[in-house]
């Protein structure tokens, strides 16, 4: 592990008094890496080891199954609806909460957190209680031939619920920490609300927003419990990737099950890769601008 803690933060060289002694850096980095290795890396390796047990050919074959493809399509569709919906909500909520003072703010923040605290089993169940055949709207929906539960709308709703707080929760502390001065000066200088948001606020929160989107997306694609309750498990129609994994596992098709599961892990790594590219581009652009000033 020699030389692991070589350079300092990507923000460029830090100034004296803001860095930790070498031994602290060493010890912390080693602790963090060991912890991540045991808690995260080993399970990930286990997933891939199982997926590749019968070779690469068998691994790839798992994705040719039309039911697997249908599951992948449904998962992508669900995430494509749920994530933007929660981004719009997250930005609106963070704007209202971070930039203004009002009574009951803490209750509102807590209500936004609430979906984290709801057991996935229950978050599926509540939609069944509202839209199910025995639920509040069930008979009316049946009369008008609208299906929500056990179809795509129900799956999307459950996913939106489960990923509800991610973007808002990422943005609120960040925007609170940043205060309102910059926006206020923009307004005073004559910018309108949207201009202020696009040109002042957004650049300041973009990393937090990106984190939020990535987390929201990962969770949207990986959610199992809540979706399981509202899906109906119809093969090739209402199974998302996680549900398809369960089906394969229950059919003793372990290789295929873990192969499809590894796809979700890869998707997560892919989104992170995109994030890093965006980050790196922004950085080179920034350092090109500020080069003369940097020490």
């Amino acid at each position: 592990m020699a030389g692991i803690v070589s350079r300092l933060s990507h923000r460029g060289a830090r100034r004296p008094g803001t860095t930790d002694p070498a031994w602290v850096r060493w010890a912390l980095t080693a602790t963090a890496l060991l912890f991540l290795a045991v808690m995260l890396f080993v399970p990930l390796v286990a997933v891939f080891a199982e997926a590749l047990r019968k070779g690469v050919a068998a691994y790839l074959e798992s994705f040719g199954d039309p039911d697997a493809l249908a599951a992948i399509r449904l998962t992508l569709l669900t995430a494509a609806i749920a994530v933007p919906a929660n981004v719009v909500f997250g930005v609106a909520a963070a704007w209202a909460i971070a930039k203004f003072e009002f009574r009951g703010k803490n209750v509102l923040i807590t209500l936004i957190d609430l979906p984290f605290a709801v057991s996935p089993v229950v978050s599926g169940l509540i939609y069944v209680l509202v839209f199910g055949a025995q639920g509040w709207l069930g008979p009316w929906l049946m009369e008008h031939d609208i299906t929500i539960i056990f179809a795509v709308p129900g799956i999307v709703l459950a996913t939106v619920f489960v990923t509800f707080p991610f973007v808002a929760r990422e943005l609120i502390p960040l925007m609170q920490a940043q205060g309102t001065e910059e926006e206020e000066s923009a307004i005073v200088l004559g910018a309108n609300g949207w201009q202020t948001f696009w040109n002042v606020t957004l650049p300041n929160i973009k990393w937090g927003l990106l984190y939020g989107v990535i987390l929201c997306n990962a969770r949207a694609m990986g959610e199992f419990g809540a979706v399981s309750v509202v899906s109906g498990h119809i093969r090739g129609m209402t199974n998302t990737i996680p549900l398809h994994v369960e089906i394969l596992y229950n059919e003793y098709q372990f290789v295929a099950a873990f192969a499809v599961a590894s796809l979700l892990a890869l998707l997560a790594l892919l989104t992170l890769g995109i994030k890093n590219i965006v980050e790196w581009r922004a950085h080179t652009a920034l350092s090109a601008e500020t080069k003369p000033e940097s020490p």
Partner: protein
Amino acid sequence: MKRFITALLIGTATLAVAAPKPVTLLNVSYDPTREFYVDFNAAFARHWETTTGQKVTIKQSHGGSGKQARSVIDGLPADLVTLALAYDIDAISEKAKLIPASWQSRLPHNSSPYFSTIVFLVRKGNPKEIKDWDDLVKPGISVITPNPKTSGGARWNYLAAWEFAKRRNGGDESKAREFVSALFKNVPVLDSGARGATTTFVQREIGDVFLSWENEAFLALKEFGADKLEIVVPSISILAEPPVTVIDKVVDRRGTRAVAEAYLNFLYSEEGQDLAGKHFYRPRLPAAAQKYATQFADVALFTIDEAFGGWKQAQETHFSDGGVFDQIYK
């Protein structure tokens, strides 16, 4: 897949002679029937098309029996259900009024086209010499069964053990309770479903004996190797009847009654019965039963109606909250 393509080809060929509109059915079933219905659906689609010229696609949904029944109650548009216990279909009748209360008398053999029983799966060579139910309560024997409160199959396990002990002790219910309670003391892990329990026993190598549906035990031998496991058939076991029915309200709304009923009748046909036998369910039809006779050991089977007065009563006494099973764990 090949069958699917041939079906497709035949489909397009018959399309020329003004074939009726293609139809889809949704069969909502429980976990262990996946492999069977893959074969059966293909066979039925062929049969239906040759007799009527209509193309039929059968969609499948699998899950725990209780959960599946709940989905149907809450509006999953199943044309027909093929579940693990009559109790779960009774719930569909009772809670959602989708089918008449007399549903079970509409088809032969209590609407169960095939049946099964509970057997023991042990490690190769049967190192702990487990022969019958009373070996399960011996100290040092570790028994794997799913949780009867969440798994339909596990309820059959529990009831079979209970009835064995009751008969052994001249009908003494308190002795039966002691026996079942001793048995569950030997259970180290209660998985929530049957297939999870199989994995615990086979993959994690926990436990000396696994109480399982007979068809699931055969499937486990096939999937995980007969060199690792073997089946032990106890002296007496329970007649496990997984029933089937069309969901009247759904088929009438969708106009699929004829094809749905034909589907269930086809389960009783020679071809359907043969497929059931092939997938380790015990067939009803004498010809098919004969064909697979060597596969299934002879075992004295009792029914839930004669031993427990039906599912409703068994459920209330043993598995509802505060029932006998809960008291075991007090």
